Structures are given as structure tokens and as C-alpha cells.
């Protein structure tokens, strides 16, 4: 392996990629390469659609990928020791969703993934969406078929709506203020 890497480094026509260059070069040299068949669940989250679909699949009654399995726990960073529980307010509601710590839910959440420290204001609606850590959907805003980036804000009274085939996205640390038709009258 080391030899193959060193050789490859000097080649000008290389993509410097394991799949495209290194492994094929080892094959050419007739090294002993074997395959191992993995039979468990796997999903490549390399595109927006597959990233979205993979998360939404967790909302099935019995998801194919069981994150609740106590035997094969998925470990995460240590910040969970300082995070408070999430709070669903008097007029809030949550259905068919996953909700992590710290989050505040004052509005209505359906079929969505709510990460740590997300904020859903009063009368706000979040459907078929993913809120990344620290994302905020302020009062009366409506978010559907969207992914809201970390610490981004969807301002009051705004529509942020994608479709099933076209998931709408806002990146990290962004702010979305309504204008014209995006404003709820």
C-alpha cells in the first residue's frame, strides 16, 4: 500500500483517489485483493436528496436503521452532558418526529427532525423538514420540505417551502427574511 501511494504521487495523470487510482493500480500488479460483503444497513448521504431521505427514513414506525438499538449504540460528542431537556409549550405539538435536547417547541412539528437547540416559535409550522443544531423558526413562520442549516433563522411570518421533489435549503448561519409572496398575509 505504501509503495503504491508513493508511486502514485509522482504520476501527473492521477486523480489521487483511492477508488480511481490506488486500488486499480494494486489490481494491475496482481496484489491479493478480496471483497467483504456487508449485509447491514448502509446509505450514502452524498447528495441532498439522499441525505434528506436517509433522515426521514428514521421516522418510520420501525426504521430499517435502528438508532434506538441499545446493543449497537451510536456515540456522539460529549456536549450532551450540558444540554437541558427539550420543552414543548402549552400550544405546541409534535407528531412523527425526532427531537433532541435543549430545543423549544412553541408551534407545530410534523414528520421532521429537530436537532439540539433548535427553536420553533409560537404558531410556527414545521413539516417534512430537518432543522440542524441551533436552527430557529420564529413565530408564525411556515417551513415545509426544507433543511435549515446550523444556527440559521427563518424570520417571523415567512414561508420557506420546498416540495417533495425539490427540497429547499438554507445553509449554516443564514437568515431568511420574507419579501413579497413569501410573506404570510
Amino acid at each position: 500500500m505504501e509503495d503504491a501511494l508513493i508511486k502514485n504521487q509522482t504520476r501527473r495523470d492521477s486523480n489521487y483517489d483511492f477508488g480511481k487510482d490506488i486500488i486499480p493500480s494494486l489490481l494491475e500488479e496482481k496484489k491479493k485483493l478480496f471483497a467483504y460483503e456487508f449485509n447491514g444497513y448502509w446509505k450514502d448521504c452524498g447528495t441532498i436528496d439522499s441525505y434528506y431521505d436517509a433522515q426521514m427514513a428514521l421516522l418510520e414506525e420501525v426504521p430499517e436503521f435502528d438508532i434506538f438499538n441499545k446493543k449497537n449504540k451510536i456515540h456522539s460528542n460529549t456536549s450532551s452532558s450540558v444540554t437541558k431537556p427539550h420543552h414543548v409549550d402549552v400550544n405546541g405539538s409534535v407528531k412523527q418526529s425526532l427531537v433532541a435536547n435543549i430545543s423549544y417547541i412553541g408551534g407545530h412539528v410534523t414528520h421532521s427532525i429537530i436537532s439540539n437547540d433548535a427553536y420553533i416559535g409560537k404558531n410556527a409550522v414545521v413539516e417534512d423538514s430537518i432543522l440542524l443544531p441551533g436552527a430557529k423558526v420564529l413565530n408564525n413562520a411556515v417551513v415545509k420540505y426544507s433543511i435549515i442549516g446550523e444556527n440559521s433563522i427563518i424570520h417571523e411570518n415567512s414561508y420557506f417551502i420546498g416540495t417533495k421533489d425539490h427540497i429547499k435549503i438554507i445553509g449554516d448561519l443564514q437568515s431568511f427574511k420574507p419579501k413579497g409572496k413569501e410573506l404570510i398575509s
Partner: protein
Amino acid sequence: MKNITGIISADYLVSSLKTLTKDRGIAALPFGSKYRMIDFPLSNMANSGIVLVGLIVPSNFGLLVEHVGIGKEWNLDKKTGGIFILPGSSIDYRNPEGKFLLNDLKQNQNFTDSITDKYILISATSKVFNINYRDVLKSHIDNNSEITLVYKESFSEFCKSDYSAEMDSSGRIIHLDTSSDNSNNCILDTILINTDIFQKLVQNYDGYEYLDLMKIIADNTLKYKVYGYEFKGYVAVFNNIESYLTANQGLLNDEVRNGIFNLTRPISTKMYDIPPTKYTKSAEISNSLVATGSTIKGSIKNSIIFRNVLIEEGSKVENALIMQNCTINKNSKLKNAIMDEHSSLSENTEVIGDEASPMLIDKNKHL
């Protein structure tokens, strides 16, 4: 703040909490969806920069020591400083509810004699609040005080058997009593004391080990400079099953929750890697606090839900507190109740307590 050593006193009984503290003591009692009582003084100390903490444990210390571990979550896993487990005196039969028994301190004289910091901050574990001990130290130094007691004004009705203080206009405590009608300043089980005075007091009362440190301070308000420090934030207290439930539900108030879970001084707790809480199509939830790892298929109202709780379809939970690893099976009802860890309600069961005196379901009970 490397000039303060912390001592947390957890070796006392709160008999009015019945079976809630029987096997675990007050320090390991769950509070607020994912915490145990010890998390509050321990986090306060860590957030105030205290790096050496002695924890006096009760005889039933198993869960407490497992929870605290080597203090990693409070950044106390250190080579200099750290958390020291100090054995309690297994409750002196003459004074089982004394929070700062001299016997407990005496028994750990190896630890207390070795303290080189100028001050000792001693706290019990029965009250929930988020305080910056640096502010207490500043007031202690400004007053040129030898002992400073943290108190809450107009609060005595909530902490009946606790000490309350009477002060002169300079803030110096002139009278300290458990049954004072003249003052309404409840001492919050928090003592900042000069290390030399502490060591002197422990020595002077040789032979009186059944006494409580607070009683000794009360007897010496003329001899030493004892000042009060007023804590203005929110304090949750409870001394029976009813107030334990209401104190927990207090966290449903935004102001209370934001005061106790102050973002700049976070309350830490033992970490578990658990998934988010899952709500299904049939879930209904209103005004509740929920920790992670739970599955909610039924309905919840005005309740506090801990980690890894399963609430099945058709079930109704109202005005209740459900501790970790409990299960409410299908079509059951839990109202005005507290459910201790690892318990369950079977299908079609109703447990409805009185609003004024909630029902308590013990640990590992399956109804």
C-alpha cells in the same frame, strides 16, 4: 478561583421524601428530566472555577458515586484537584437530618486538614439553584467576613426546618435560628468559610460530633464575623412528595428554566449516548419537558419525562413525573403521580393520585 476548596455534604436523610430517597439519598434523587440533585452544587462549583471538591457520601452511595464518576462531565478529572469521595459517618442516630454533621467533617479530617486554599465553600444538595460562587467570595472579601452564608429573602415559608438569619444594616448576621419568627431570610445550605476558622471550629468542638456546623455557626455569631449574601435568582425547594412534583413542574416556566439552566453557567450531568426522543403519529404533547431516548406514542400534558421512557399508544399522562427507563403500556392512564425509575404500568391500568397529594410509584414496581 483556585483559592476555594469545595465540600458537598450529601450524608443526611430527608425522611419526608419517603421512598424517593431511601435507596439513593437526596444527592442522587432525579430532578428536571435528566439531572440528579448533586448536579446543581457540583456544576455551580465547577462553573465558579473550583477545581478541588470533597464529596461526603451517604452509606447508600452506590448510585451517587456511579453518577459522579471521576468528575469528567464537570471538568474535575484533573491531576491537581479533582473530586474526592469522602465517606460519611453513616448518619449519626441523634441527628439524622443534620446537613453538615461535625462527625462527617471530623471523620474526613485527613482531607480537611490538607486544604491549602484560603476558603472552603460548603454546600448541601437539597435545593436547586444556579449561582456564581465568585460573587459570594467577592462579598465575603468586601465585608472582611470570616463566614458568609448565602440566603434568599422572603423565602422562609418554603424552607420550614431550615435556618433563617437576622441581619443588621451592614449585612452582618446577628441571629441565626431554625424557628425564628423575626426573620424571613432562608439560608440556602451554602457556607463560605475561611479555612483557618473552619479548622479551629472543628477542633474546638471536639466531643460534640453530633452537632451540625450550622448550629455551631449560630452559637458563634458574636465571636466571628458572619455575614449574609443575598441570592436573587430562582431557587427550587421541596420537602415532601407534593412539592417535589411542583418544583419539577416549575421548570415548565420559561423564566424559571432559563434561570436554572443559565447558558453561561450550564448545569452538567452524567453523559449517555442516547438517540433523540421519537414522537409517532399518534403522539400528543403539551407543556412538558422531555429528555432524550424516549418514545412517545400516547399523550402527555404538564409532565416531566426522563430518559428512555416509553409511552404507548392510547395512554394518557397528565401532571406527572416519570423517571428514566419507565414504561406506560397501551391505554393506561397516569395522573397526579410520580413514577420512580424502572417501573411500568401494564395495559389498561389507571393510576390517578390526588391533585394535592400525588401518588408515588416506587422503583422497579410493575402495576
